[in-house]
């Protein structure tokens, strides 16, 4: 099982008639059990790339090969819940086979027990995002795509959920693609980090993290982060000089 | 021998349904060895639809339309049913004394611009140099609505179908002129039956005997309605009124309208009036034919 991405370009034509190049050539692949992290400035084309990878947008140059019949779990950047279905129904509708114990467990982890019967309009944004996470986990995905899943959550909760994602990824051979603005999340969860340029996005640097996820202590993480920060600073300095 | 079936399209509120009630009540259909399949309909035009759709063998219409259809290719034919025509009615106290007084007045015309009575009235007035269409204010509308409007006093005068005129008469309106009364001036020798039984020529040819029996049967029914007030009792509930005066007017007018002339006389007068109508109504009304189509009248009834 392997995800092959080879996009050579993507252009949007806006309603006003202008064209915007959103993706420059981007090429990478991801294996089962691997967590790829996309980090890049706001508006550079990350969500667009995810939509292409998931087959939601066919209007691009290049090729994407998804593992056939892979179950996909996705957390969109906005929750995208069905407003007319309760929290529980929203989850069950995409994962009809889920058993009650599993669902209860999910809701417990995400602290959603009190909200099972609420409609999305009755949730805070953070709660809605958690429902979206529950939905993505509930399908037991082969390919998990997370577009800033931990935004709008408080640090404590975000930390616990990060652990959960790590557990999920460790327990089954899931391919994971994570978009985040948090270097901390990236370093704690990722196996390979892709740093993207501003629009049109291309891969500035691909940074593999050699230490296995469960062996990364606070010290290692701090070291990696420091290394990455030094790197981007020198790069930025380099660009400023050139 | 099994009875011949004839399918009839009948307007429920029309006089044909009175006749049918009489036929049924007196067993005239069995006597004529006919089985009548009656479709009751709620409007005049529905009969034409039934005919065109092939759901009825006989319905009521006028020779004007039959001739027009014939000239356009549909071989229908006509046998007189009633010579009752509309009348111009005015309120009892109205200053309008003659038809000429209609000038400058508000005249309601039921049935629209191609109504026979209206066209005949126009032709008659033209003879006196009056163009009613421009000299009077004409209000077209649905007959029942115009009858109500006349009662309201919204109209100075109204030209309506005879049954509505009967209603107005019973309410105290004055009959300024019946259209049958002006026909002689237009060249007719006697009362002309504008309305008749209409059926398909080919169908009639195949059911010559049944048609003859049908017409004989209706004649008997008409005769009963003329002679027997008991027969009228049966019809009264169908007229939609319980008012004795109005019932009497209905009866008298109905009896007046029963055709009594020979079919050839009828046809000759129809031919004359057709020319008059063609002149007033134009091509829109009569279609491409300037003369009454020769086959319009059905002649194969014994005793005519």
């Amino acid at each position, binding site marked *: 099982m392997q995800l092959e991405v080879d996009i050579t370009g993507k252009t949007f034509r806006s309603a006003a008639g202008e064209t915007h190049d959103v993706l420059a050539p981007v090429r990478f692949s991801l294996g089962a059990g691997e967590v790829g992290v996309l980090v890049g400035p706001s508006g550079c084309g990350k969500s667009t790339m995810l939509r292409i990878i998931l087959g939601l947008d066919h209007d691009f140059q290049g090729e994407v090969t998804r593992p056939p019949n892979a179950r996909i779990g996705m957390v969109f950047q906005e929750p*995208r819940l069905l407003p007319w279905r309760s929290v529980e129904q929203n989850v069950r509708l995409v994962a009809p086979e889920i058993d009650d114990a599993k669902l209860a467990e999910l809701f417990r982890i995400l602290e959603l027990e009190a909200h099972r019967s609420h409609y999305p309009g009755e949730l805070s944004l953070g709660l809605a995002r958690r429902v979206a996470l529950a939905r993505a986990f509930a399908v037991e995905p082969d390919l998990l795509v997370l577009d800033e899943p931990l935004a709008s959550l408080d640090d404590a909760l975000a930390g616990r959920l990060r652990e959960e994602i790590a557990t999920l990824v460790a327990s089954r051979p899931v391919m994971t693609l994570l978009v985040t603005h948090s270097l901390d999340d990236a370093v704690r969860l990722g196996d390979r980090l892709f740093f993207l340029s501003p629009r049109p996005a291309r891969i500035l640097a691909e940074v593999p993290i050699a230490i296995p996820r469960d062996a990364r202590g606070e010290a290692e993480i701090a070291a990696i982060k420091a290394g990455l920060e030094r790197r981007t600073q020198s790069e930025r300095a380099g660009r400023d000089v050139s | 021998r099994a009875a011949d079936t004839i399918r009839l399209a009948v307007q429920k509120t029309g006089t044909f349904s009175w006749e049918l009630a009489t036929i049924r009540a007196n067993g005239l259909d069995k006597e004529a060895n006919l089985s009548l399949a009656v*479709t009751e*309909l709620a409007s005049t035009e529905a009969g034409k*639809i039934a005919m065109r*759709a092939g759901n009825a063998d006989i319905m009521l219409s006028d020779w004007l339309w039959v001739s027009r259809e014939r000239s356009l290719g549909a071989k229908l034919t006509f046998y007189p049913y009633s010579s009752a025509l509309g009348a111009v009615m005015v309120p009892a106290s109205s200053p309008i004394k003659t038809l000429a007084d209609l000038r400058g007045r508000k005249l309601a015309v039921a049935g629209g611009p191609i109504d026979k009575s209206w066209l005949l009235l126009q032709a008659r007035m033209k003879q006196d140099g009056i163009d009613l269409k421009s000299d009077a204010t004409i209000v077209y509308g649905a007959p029942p609505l115009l009858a109500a409007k006349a009662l309201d006093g919204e109209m100075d005068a109204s030209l309506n179908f005879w049954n509505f005129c009967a209603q107005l008469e019973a309410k105290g309106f004055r009959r300024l002129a019946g259209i049958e009364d002006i026909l002689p001036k237009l060249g007719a020798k006697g009362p002309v039956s504008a309305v008749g039984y209409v059926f398909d020529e080919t169908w009639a040819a195949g059911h010559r005997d049944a048609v003859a029996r049908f017409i004989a049967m209706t004649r008997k029914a008409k005769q009963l309605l003329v002679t027997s007030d008991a027969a009228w009792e049966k019809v009264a509930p169908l007229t939609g009124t319980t008012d004795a005066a109005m019932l009497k007017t209905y009866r008298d007018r109905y009896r007046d309208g029963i055709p009594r002339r020979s079919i050839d006389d009828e046809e000759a007068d129809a031919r004359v009036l057709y020319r008059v109508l063609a002149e007033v109504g134009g091509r829109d009304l009569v279609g491409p034919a300037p003369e009454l189509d020769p086959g319009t009248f059905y002649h194969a009834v014994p005793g005519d």
Partner: protein
Amino acid sequence: MLRLLSFALFLAIWWIAALFVGGAKLPSPPAVLQVMIGEAESGALFLHLGATLARVALAFVLAMSLGSAIGYLMGRVKFADRLGDPWLILLLNLPALVVIVLAYIWAGLTEAAAIAAIAINKLPTAVVTLREGTRALDRSLDEMATVFAMPRWRAFRHVVLPQLAPYIAAAARSGLSLVWKIVLVAELLGRPNGVGFEIGVAFQLFDTPRLLAYSLTFAAVVLVIETLLVQPFEARATRWRPRAA
């Protein structure tokens, strides 16, 4: 409660108006009620109302289901929209009378012809409304359903249908009223029974109490259905909507 009050208000206004303009111009409520009772006792009311309701129900279901399907298709598929649009406009703007007459001429004065003609008259308005609804669908939810590989029918039922619900409600309400207006014409022109037939007869006799008795009986039936069935159902179906603060 308020509904009842409002209804009572309607009756009161009617009654007062009738007293003012006189029974010839506007029959009073008791006069109409009396006719209703008379017709009900003779059984004629139920006969005609039943015949009409059956036609209305059949034509309505036919037109709504077919019209919604076509409207959805035209809203989704640009090609279908382009192709179907001139037909739609034509059908929309063909007078009821013409459609009914043609249907009767072609298919005979039959029940099937009547129902088909009525359905054809209503069809395009359902198409137009559902097409607008489909065009306004939220694409982001579609994407969600696609990504999670929701089966077609489940996605339609849970993702699309609730978004179309207000359009369906609008099409159904105004559609029912349209069907009802047209069934009368169809009955007037070629059916031997039904409320339209009776109204035609009442009109010929200019019997306004009868005219109103039959008209209002149908309205009353719809009012009862609305109050007891549609509105509770609607309230349940739109529970999710945030209420005004």
